């Protein structure tokens, strides 16, 4: 009386998935296509009389030669790599410390998680206040120590300060994941290592470290992607300045599109960012999906890891 089972299943699956896919189609396919469309044209939002002519790859070639863009890429590379490595190093160190002392561990962990829960814009603004040369506590504190406080948001240190704010906010993420990963190492392994006479260093290298490889990869991927997209904090702390010292491609894109209203050019930047992201993310996502498939197929049931 009904359609054959497999057909019914396909319909159900379709109905279940359609809304999500539809919405996401709007979010990803459309911007990609439209960006491409815009990027091949000249289009000044505030000067509609300027001919919206097709310029082919003109915007892209201009982009490749654009010193501002190239500098922005350099800034981004420095920002993302510095922030993520420092976050992970500190997060790992703290996780190791936390694991060794059980008393009050939960409270300490929760307290250290606070920065991650702050609105990024607020975090940026608070740090801007703290680093303020006139009424910020940072320089006052340094003054008390007899050290002359530097101009944190000046040309030399702006990028460092911004990286610092990012590390402050996202180190808890590494901490959290490493803590969970460390907690999932079976105690027996440590006991066996002790019985075998392994030194502390050896235990760390051969028992702990291997178990951290996968979580570390996960953190790396997520945090790099986030750093790549980062806009809020930098915008609010330095606006990309002084000059262009902290201007990432994201900020440059913003200025070109919504301050200069050079939409065609801005769209080409957007498109480049999107494609770069896709290319970089593709192999990682593929691997993550494959792992997911394997685990599901093995029929494992995940128990609480924390």
């Amino acid at each position, binding site marked *: 009386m009904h359609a054959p089972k497999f057909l019914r299943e396909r319909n159900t699956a379709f109905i279940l998935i359609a*809304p999500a896919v539809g919405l996401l189609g709007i979010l990803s396919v459309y911007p990609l296509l439209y*960006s491409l469309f815009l990027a091949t044209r000249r289009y000044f939002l505030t000067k509609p009389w300027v001919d919206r002519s097709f310029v082919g790859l003109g915007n892209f070639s201009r982009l490749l030669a654009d010193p501002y863009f190239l500098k922005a890429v350099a800034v981004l590379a420095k920002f993302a790599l510095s922030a993520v490595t420092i976050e992970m190093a500190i997060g790992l160190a703290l996780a190791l410390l936390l694991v060794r002392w059980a008393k009050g561990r939960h409270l300490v962990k929760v307290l250290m998680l606070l920065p991650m829960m702050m609105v*990024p814009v607020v975090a940026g603004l608070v740090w801007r206040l703290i680093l303020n040369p*006139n009424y910020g506590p940072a320089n006052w504190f340094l003054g008390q120590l007899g050290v002359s406080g530097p101009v944190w948001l000046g040309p030399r240190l702006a990028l460092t300060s911004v990286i610092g704010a990012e590390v402050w906010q996202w180190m808890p993420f590494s901490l959290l994941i490493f803590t969970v990963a460390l907690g999932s190492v079976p105690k027996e392994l440590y006991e066996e290592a002790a019985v075998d006479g392994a030194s502390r260093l050896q235990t760390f290298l051969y028992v702990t470290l291997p178990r951290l490889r996968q979580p570390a990869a996960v953190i790396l991927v997520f945090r790099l992607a986030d750093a790549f997209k980062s806009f809020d904090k930098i915008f609010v702390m330095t606006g990309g300045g002084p000059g262009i010292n902290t201007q990432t491609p994201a900020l440059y894109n913003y200025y070109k599109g919504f301050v200069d209203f050079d939409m065609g050019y801005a769209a080409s930047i957007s498109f480049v960012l999107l494609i770069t992201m*896709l290319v970089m993310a593709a192999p990682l996502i593929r691997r993550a999906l494959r792992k997911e498939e394997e685990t599901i197929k093995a029929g494992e049931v995940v128990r609480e890891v924390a």
Partner: protein
Amino acid sequence: MKWRKTARTLEAVIGRFALLVAVCWSLFPVYWMISTSLRESSAAFAATPQLIFKATLANYYEVISDTGFMTTVFNSLVIALVATLIALVVGSMAAYGFARFRFKGDAQLSFWVLSNRMFPPIAIVLPFFIIFKAVELLDTRLALIIVYTAFNLPMVVWVMRSFIADLPKEVEEAAFIDGCSQLQVLTKIVLPLVRPALFATGILTFTFAWNEFLFALILTNVRAQTLPVKIASFVSERGVLWGEMMAAATIAVLPILVVTLWMNRHLTRGLTLGTLRE
């Protein structure tokens, strides 16, 4: 032997000290934000920051009595809640579909859903701005709801799929045999079982919508302005009113902090189980 013991104690002390430093470093900006919000504006500008000061709620009065600000709070709340709701509903449905059904091209679909998380918002704003402008959806709450829902869907689908896939199929199969329709199985059996995951992803989605800045900045102006944008705007208008800005910031940050601390346990699972498989 004695050397060993001294080394061990020293290590314990240094370790504890390091943790203490880390906690202070993590908390100091939060403390500074709150304390600045409690100072009188003139004191906030003092050349030497005072650690002891007369606490006052003047900034909070200023901020709360500004109707523009309260509208902003309302906007943020409504947008975040609705976006979260829709994302959870639509996302769970899709997650169930991905988890329980095998069909052609579902790996590609999963990949695509996941890759959406990687998109830099800035790269997407432009087309959205232009299209929302065309359909006159600029400066509306609906625009942000649509965008935030779509932005969080990948994560919801991804996390919920893990959890649903882990449920033993027997329970659902039994329900089917008993004559339940697919919808009933989903709502009455599967969803209650994954409630913690729903909570966790719900909080993450809400937090994202509440904190989001870029889209709100570009797609709204006055009517649909959200909190983060409003707080940042304290900078340009009349110089920088740090006291009031910090009061507004504290108000903005408080709900997330409270909810997150309260749901801390669930959050750990939600955050990490979506990413770790041990």
